[in-house]
């Protein structure tokens, strides 16, 4: 059962998304700010991280950059979730080292596809 870390500060979105992911058969752990997200990522070593970008304490870009710069967490795929559908956000996501990105509101089907793709890709090599 793949373990997914969901870093999201909005309680409703966190609850909704984690429940839907669980229904899909993932094991979900969640964090409500950047620092907690970083800690959980390091301690729990999830298979994939869904990273909201506008987070308190430490924003999604910073957490991503930290995780991608550490040897132990670099391999974890990260999908950035941004509220803005701006070109710059997409660029920022890849700049920070995200493996994929999606915009809110979440199209669940599309997101699960992306998650699956990354998990498969991770298993292959």
């Amino acid at each position: 059962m793949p373990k997914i870390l969901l870093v999201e500060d909005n309680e409703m979105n966190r609850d909704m998304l984690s429940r839907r992911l669980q229904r899909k058969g993932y094991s979900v752990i969640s964090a409500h700010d950047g620092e907690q997200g970083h800690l959980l990522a390091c301690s729990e070593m999830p298979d994939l991280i869904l990273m909201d970008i506008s987070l308190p304490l430490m924003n999604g870009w910073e957490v991503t950059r930290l995780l991608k710069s550490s040897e132990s967490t670099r391999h974890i795929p990260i999908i950035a979730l941004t509220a803005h559908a701006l070109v710059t956000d997409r660029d920022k996501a890849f700049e920070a080292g995200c493996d994929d990105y999606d915009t809110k509101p979440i199209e669940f089907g599309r997101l699960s596809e992306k998650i699956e793709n990354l998990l498969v890709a991770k298993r292959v090599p």
Partner: protein
Amino acid sequence: MILQNLSIKRKLTLITMLTSSAALILSALSFLIYDLVSFRHLLIQDLMTQAEIIGYNSAGAMEFKDVSAATATLSALTAKEDVVTAGLYGRDSKMFAHYSRNNNVIPLLLPAHSQDKGYRFEAGYLQVFHDVTLNGERLGTLFLQSDMRQWSLRAKRYAGILCIFVLISGLFALLVSSRLQRLISRPILHLEDTMRMVSANRNYGVRATKSYGDEIGRLIDGFNTMLSEIQQRDTALRGANEELKARTGELEKEILYRKQTQEELLKAKHIAEEASRAKSTFLANMSHELRTPLNAIIGYSEMLEEETRELGKSDSVQDLRKIQSAGKHLLSLINDVLDLSKIEAGKMGLHLENFEVAPLIDEMATTLTPAAAKNGNTIHVHVANTLGAMHADVTKVRQILFNLLSNACKFTDHGTISVDVDESKVEGRDWIRFRVSDTGIGISAKQKENLFHEFSQADASIARKYGGTGLGLAITYRFVQLMKGRISVESAPGKGATFTVYLPAQVIAETSETTRPMASSDPAPSSDESKARKDTILVIDDDASVRDLMSRFLSKLGFHVVAAASGEEGVRLARQVRPLVITLDVVMPECDGWTVLKKLKSDSSLAEIPVIMVTIVDNEAMGLDLGASNYLIKPVDRDRLAVLIEKHRTGRSASITGAPATPFISSISSSRKGQKESELKSSRKVDHAKDLVSRR
């Protein structure tokens, strides 16, 4: 010459006097001469007669050689005052008797011998010799000598009379001429006076009075005519002058008024721009804030739908779907508003890439087939075989087509929607032409006017019947403009509509003020160039030591530092080097930091550059109000400054670095090679289409 400079009055008097006196003197002289000549002649005659008488009387005495008788006869000459001497000569020419006025004086003047008869003048005396005869026999000669006393007396008297006469007549002439000269001199003097008055007072209203009809009279007439003409011109000139003055005054007022209006307009423009910016920011923020709860609404309803479907409660499924679709509709509206606000705020950039046109059209047709089917419409696609790839912002092209197609589907009932795409060359450039036509309700001429304006649906009833915000075409229009294309529409009510969009086959990125020079602006910017741009920091401070310290500190951090000692120089350098960040002092001579900040923020090409205030003035609120990004109080906490600048660097670098044409592929392919690329690419396209559908 003294005479020439005399007044005309004097001249006239003098001329008259001299002329009359000369004439008088000449005539008097000629008369005098004539009189004297004839008087002398008379005297000669008289003396000769005297000589004849004396000669006759003394003939007896001579005959008888009676000297005493002869002397007695001669002494009768005493009666004649002017006879000075007399003598009788015998036949032998010897003195016989003599007479002298002064008896005792022997007349030495008497000639010793008689001479030939006749008269002669000798030493101022008139001498007469006369033959004394008796019965035809010559007895001797008589001699008379006169001193012409009468003549000289007469001459003297005449000269005296003449002098007095000339004097009196001269005086009289003076009197008369001095009166008569006025005839001529007075009008001339009057003319002169008038002229002097005119030239002294510049009063062209004065006129000389004409006294007589002579030449001077005509001169005065001429002068007066000349004056009237000058007066007329003067009046006209003065009138023109005043008119000119009045007009100049009016013009000045007009200019002042316009200047004020211009200033007011400028102010109003700034306020309006400010308001517009504020509105755009507000809309962007609002859209973001609205989307978060919407996210929950759509997400939960989807989740519930899945759950209820599993539980087999089909009634609830329908309702949940309605919540979902309403949520998605709301989302699409918010997205439209966000798009427009971004366009208006000039934050809508272009993300240019190469893509094949035909597959895009197919994809769009597929995406919209369900929407078309809803109203019983069919979609026909005609893409020219020759059509290849184009270089443009694919997302925006897709949205343009989507908007046009979904509008066509919306406003057509059981009809046909056709999409024609081909390529054409206009003005030496390649254009891709997209034509979307339908057989729907069409658009009236009046409706066309506002078709591409925000929030303007053809009329309110349409909004009720067909839904939508009226933003779709406005966004389409702006996107077309952004890519330097053209859009037009042909339609009539009930006859369907044909929208034609021309887009350049090779869209060139715009780097003007309206769009940010970001990712898309240059497909492949040279890394050196962008780096140079990225790393420059502009330090504006009038204190040389501060500039020096900042430069050293920032150089150590790896930035290129440009320093300006004054506000003006700072603004100029900002335009020139386009720094990553500007640090700005407040207290500076001439142009202070607030002014510089205002200038920077009001220049659309510079407004984006973050400004960090570095000053001793503690007025953070003011700085942030004016648009500063951060506010640091001197002495500067260097670590904080470094953090702030670094923050701006990362922020900017993310937006500046040229985004790879296919970011998904490039980033993913680094972790996992090839095999899935095409799959991902297509899935991404489908994602976008789905995204668009979900936004509507």
